[in-house]
């Protein structure tokens, strides 16, 4: 039995130590807000926070998450920055199909918590691993800047 601290509460799962965290979240704990995209840490749809670090749950074994604070999209509104990110997402109408968006919100929140005033290069570095096939990238960038209180600037 493994105990995982998810969204501020302990959860017990009876799974092999190498089970991907994503399986534990989605299939065993019913936390389906975190999406299964590529399964190879290439798309970012499964992004969660481990001790505040954006992490690809699809390639993270539950053994690597023990004793860490796991935060998923379901609880990100309890974080002041996460709440602001979600509000900016709504204000700018970022999502289209929505499948990648929980991962985008998690990645953007982690960025803004670490760098409240990110540069364009910071945004590129933090967000380029989160794929959006609908192409909502211009709005993702704008929403991050809105949270940071930065005006939209033309990229140089």
């Amino acid at each position: 039995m493994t105990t995982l601290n998810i969204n501020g509460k302990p959860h017990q799962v009876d799974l092999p130590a190498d089970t991907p965290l994503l399986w534990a979240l989605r299939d065993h704990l019913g936390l389906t807000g975190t999406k299964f995209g590529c399964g190879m840490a290439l798309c970012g749809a499964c992004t969660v926070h481990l001790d505040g670090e954006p992490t690809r749950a699809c390639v993270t074994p539950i053994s690597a998450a023990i004793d860490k604070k796991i935060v998923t999209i379901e609880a990100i509104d309890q974080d002041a920055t996460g709440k602001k990110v979600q509000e900016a997402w709504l204000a700018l109408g970022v999502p289209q199909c929505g499948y990648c968006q929980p991962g985008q919100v998690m990645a953007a929140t982690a960025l803004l918590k670490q760098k409240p005033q990110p540069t364009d290069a910071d945004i590129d570095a933090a967000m380029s691993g989160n794929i959006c096939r609908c192409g909502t990238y211009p709005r993702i960038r704008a929403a991050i800047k809105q949270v940071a209180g930065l005006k939209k600037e033309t990229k140089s």
Partner: protein
Amino acid sequence: MHANDTDLHAQGASTFIDDMPEPAGLLHACPVVSGIAHGLIESIDLNDALACPGVVAILLARDIPGCNNIGNVEAGEVLLAEQEVVYQGQPVAVVVAESDAVARRAAGLVRICYKELPAVFDARAAHAQGLHIAPPRIFSLGDVDQAWKDCDVIVEGSAVSGAQEHVYLETQVAVAYPLENEGLKVFSATQSPGMVQRVIARVLDCAMNRVEVDVLRLGGAFGGKEEQATGWAAMAALAAGRLQKPVKIRMNQGEDMRWTGKRHPYDSDFKIGLDKTGRILAYEVCFYQNAGAVADLSLAILERTLFHAGNSYFIPNVRATAISCRTHLPPNTAFRGFGGPQAMFALEAAIFKAAAAMHVDPAHIQRRNLLQEGQPFPYGMPAENCRAQRCWQQLHDRFDLPRRQQAIDNFNAGHSLEKKALALMPICFGISFTATFLNQASALVHVYADGSVSVSCGAVEMGQGVKEKIRHVAARTLGIDKARIKVESTNTARIANMSPTAASVGSDLNGQATLLACQRILQGLKTVAARLAGGEPEQISIEQEQVCLDGRPTATGWNKLVSEAYLSRTPLSAHAHYATPKVFFDRSTERGRPFAYHVYGCAAVEVAVDCLRGTYRVTDVSIVHDGGRSLAPDIDRGQVEGGVVQGLGWMTLEEVRHDGQGRLLTDSLTAYKIPDLYFAPDIAVEFLDGDNPAAVMHSKAVGEPPLMYGIGGYFALVKAIRAFNPDWQPGFSAPMTPEKVLLALYECGC
């Protein structure tokens, strides 16, 4: 209050099929697919797979009770191969097991022996061998053969545009539940619930009313779930029907990439003739479409290629030939633009080559030949409400293009190892299904006794915002707050015979049907309201949830009105059907009016190329887009932005490659590069508004047209390369990957 999808997505609270709770006893299906591109099946050995603990059944073609066919065109569109396999990844069997992992493992243990047959993967090679899906089609206007003699400049060449993988992040998935009395309920990630229902009934040899298909939303589709969601849903249904257990099937991303079709690669030959002022007098083009192994939607896509052979230009003499070539790749399929982008790329290549020969900027020829009101398309229909010139002019005025071009020229003069360029891309895209019968839709609207409203229609939500647009139409028609309106899942038991959500017309068709159904309910409500307000129904309107008499608010609000209507036994539900008027096409003459209207636009795409490394940035895209009176301006802007990003990806980064045996090499995001946030340029969009009597509330379709602005990215790169290496003669082969750019920068003129 009804939250819209945006709220749910940002909270991770929106449900996709894979998020649905799995029922007890759920079985998992995994296809066994052909490992070769072409051959005859000599034997199938199921023993090892059946011996796997947890395997429940393995189904073959012989287990299909009905017809082994999942297509609309030809007998070869089978669910499971019988004697012959025609592409790598073609399903031959379906393993059903107690877990996904067991099903997948057992699928790998099925041994199929083949007698290999020759395979062909290239459209021109298939054409040379006489391998076609159907006879060629030819659209012509004027007399091309006579026109050449009047031309001052004639150039010929070829253009190649590659495949494009859809990469919807929600992969193909379906869950089928057996119901009483031989019924089935199927949750399928499809753009075509009606087709999935019809094909399952065909495969299982049952009536369509036994099969209910439900779609809540899709995690991306882009055309890849129009035809190609059907087979997987049919496999789940076949297994669920036979085993009387719920069955789920879900591809992983690599399987999805290997087993499903893509945007069609095209190989085209062109010849273009102009007078010395740059007026195009004649254009001849032959499109070789790589259809893949079976028809799928290839012929409809080929037809749309022909409809867009002239793009946004008037060319008096045109002969466009289109040939659908049968190869041994997975059947290629719909992808945003549906054959239009390939046609436009070929014509832009011809214009670019002619401009080089004439030593003018391609923009000179583009501008000189833009369509004007009343001029005919190569299929006889005249341009109506033509916006080609206005979009072009407004783009130049609002985005200060002359100054930007000057700045680029100055930059290039001062920089030897970095070059910039700007290219223009006008578009004109026809709106309607070209299969005329598909231009119909139904809506079912209920007003409940508490004043809340439910709308069902045939539109599938896949990120294009159609549900939000339908809510807008219903709210505006009924005169009430949008928060009262819920758009239901797309369900074949509520809406019969629905067309696919495709061809950009989801909101046009279903919005109009919703409007008609709401009007029908409103008619009864007005009679009730007139009685309450002491007037005639003609004097009544509902505005901001209040009954108005001659435009003045009365004491009666929406809730009271609905309650009174219910108590007085007035109908509060209505069904309505809409069929796009005035569209027709005669394939014997290749003439008609296939489109309700056209969408126009023009983009300026700016790039910067690092001439040491071949790397590049698309730095800026400025667009004037013909948007009509938008139902939801923010959604439309998002569709334009997303379409541009996807179109730029097709033209620049995204390269689909196979090995010599037809095996996909680019089957993951490590090998197949699609746009990311770093790649996405600044995109400025200005809408040209105006009336459009041909669509609901004067709106205009927006899903597909903006993708074609991306073509400008290719030609901007070509211009930047030539600024560094003027001797380079472009071969017009897209995508223009950084590797190709680097080679072009240092290729000698030859």
